[in-house]
């Protein structure tokens, strides 16, 4: 390790991931990266760019279209001295490896007392006509299974820190990134956070009127709603869950005990959204609320490809604002003003202004 003093810098999420991988690989030569397209010119949305030049062919690999066997291979490698980082360009592909992840990786240490230090990056998303088989959230499915850690970084800084933490974790970790976050930027902190620190929910914005609990991309929708509310004198607390395999109920409860209002925002269809667990656990613990808790989740149908249709298929800042309005007993007019104050994306099917397809 060199002695150069690194200034605090701003990075976008993709670069943060790449830096996280690169720094981890420098520190630990047992790490290797594998995935369809990892060393190709597009380099997983740029996030693996240059890694092959830096670390060589044997540590940065492409792979056949064999998600299931490649996951098993990575488990086997992780059991024998290597630390694999396996990448799926869409989380939807990972369903082909559900047996390896759920039946094998999640249970191996419990059974055999042997660690499985495996990291699987999976990209979730929406938009630009990705449609029903390329834009599901799906992490909630894996989070039902004890034994898999689920990291849900919402900011570039968390992406970098969590990538390093994941690659340092002796457990299987699913690293879930939302395609809409890739261009977002944040200040990167120098000091390295521990896994325990990173698993703590983080209060991103203080407030007293209501608490919004969100994760991954929904954190940004929540912040958008909270900022609009702030313009009208309502301070909303925004909590980023950060991990999906356990929820930091202490932090959430402390906030809700203060704000007396709870809104949860999630990317899964409403029926069995992981968000229900947060509401349910707090209510089981007898927390007292001024108004009923509210879950903003996605509609109970697949995401249609057409952007005309998809527009209605995502519950975002507007829906969160509506939930806030209900919790604050706002009038229709007051809500209208808040909605008008939301920062609006260019179009709902692109992550940012510069995006122009094709994926």
């Amino acid at each position: 390790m060199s002695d150069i003093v690194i200034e605090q810098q701003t990075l976008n999420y993709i670069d943060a991931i790449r830096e996280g991988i690169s720094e981890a690989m420098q520190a630990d030569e047992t790490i290797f990266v594998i995935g369809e397209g990892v060393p190709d010119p597009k380099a997983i949305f740029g996030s693996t760019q240059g890694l092959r030049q830096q670390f060589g062919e044997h540590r940065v690999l492409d792979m056949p279209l064999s998600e299931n066997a490649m996951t098993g291979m990575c488990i086997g490698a992780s059991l024998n001295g290597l630390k694999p980082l396996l990448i799926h360009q869409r989380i939807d592909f990972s369903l082909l490896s559900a047996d390896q992840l759920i039946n094998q990786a999640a249970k191996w240490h419990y059974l055999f007392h042997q660690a499985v230090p495996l990291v699987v990056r999976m990209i979730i998303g929406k938009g630009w006509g990705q449609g029903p088989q390329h834009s599901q959230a799906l992490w909630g499915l894996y989070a039902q299974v004890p034994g898999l850690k689920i990291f849900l970084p919402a900011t570039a800084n968390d992406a970098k820190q969590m990538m390093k933490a994941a690659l340092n974790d002796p457990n299987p970790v699913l690293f879930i990134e939302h395609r809409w976050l890739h261009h977002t930027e944040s200040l990167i902190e120098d000091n390295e956070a521990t896994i325990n620190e990173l698993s703590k929910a983080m209060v991103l914005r203080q407030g007293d009127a209501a608490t919004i609990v969100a994760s991954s991309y929904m954190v940004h929708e929540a912040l958008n709603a909270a900022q609009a509310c702030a313009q009208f004198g309502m301070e909303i607390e925004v909590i980023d869950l950060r991990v999906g395999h356990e929820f930091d109920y202490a932090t959430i409860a402390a906030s809700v005990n203060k704000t007396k209002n709870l809104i949860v925002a999630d990317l899964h269809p409403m029926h069995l959204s992981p968000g229900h667990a947060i509401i349910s656990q707090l209510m089981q613990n007898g927390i007292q609320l001024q108004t009923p808790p509210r879950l903003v989740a996605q509609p109970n149908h697949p995401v249609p490809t057409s952007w005309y249709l998809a527009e209605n298929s995502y519950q975002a800042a507007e829906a969160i604002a509506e939930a806030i309005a209900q919790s604050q007993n706002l009038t229709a007019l007051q809500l209208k003003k808040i909605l008008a104050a939301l920062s609006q994306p260019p179009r709902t099917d692109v992550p940012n202004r510069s995006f122009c397809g094709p994926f």
Partner: protein
Amino acid sequence: MTIVVEKLLDLYSQIHLIRRIEEKIAEEYHQQTMRCPVHLSIGQEAVAVGVSAHLNSNDRVYSNHRAHAHYLALNANLESLIAELHGLENGCCGGRGGSMHLIDLEKGFAGSTPIVGATVPIAMGAAFAFKQQKRSHIAVSYLGDGCFEEGVVYESLNFAALHRLPILFVLENNQYSVYTRLKQRQPEGRSISKLAAAMGVSVLHGDGNCIDDVYGLAAQAIAQIRAGKGPYFIELDTYRWPEHCGPSDDDHLGYRPQGELAAWKARCPLQYAKTLLVQAGVALNHIQQLEQKNSKKIESAWVKALNGLTPNPKKAAEGVYV
């Protein structure tokens, strides 16, 4: 195989239509009105055209992410394709699918979906149904060389061979999966079609850029399948010209060896078919007439398609269950 001139004209016309529609999509894509990924078939048109020539509308064809040619070669609805790419109500899925999910049951195009390998067993299920029902139809499953790495394909070949199902597997070997060359994914020296043969299906291997070759092999395989001789697997060598996904060229990225694309362009399936026509004595202006007809067809379908309504977002929740 020599093909009668009328048929050859048909085949040429289809190849040409597919080429032009794909070029048109590429041209228009920057307008940002086709807001979905597109995987173009340019360079690979002869495969679908040569196979489809032996199918009828009761047969069932299943395909993957790169489905435009497979769809169009069955004379499936052009306007519905264009509208689907634009996310419109008059699209073949009412906009719900986009380029990666096409269907035209009337013409036998029974569905394409983009999870690599996923429709291979589904096609086999169609073949299973035909056999159970003692119907004479066949199923066709298109797959790429990359798809041949998915375990489900082997499971499917095994079951198809076991039950001698009426199914044709058409493997388009364009040597790439996205930017990754075959030899980075499958062992050198491996023959895909020999491997398929070892699974227990009958196998043929040919040049996917030569319409006469494709047409002949498909004729042979499909006749055997219809005669109850069980599943066939045709491997066809071909090449994708544009980028894997999207409207552009990407040779500058350097993932293909220098000159490879040029060499394959010199073996253009459209040009090859044209040469066959000329050799068969067809006059060039006759060919031009065909081409003009196609261009008009595309222009008018494009206009009609874009006249379609935008789908009603309120209806997005409908149809999850029957």
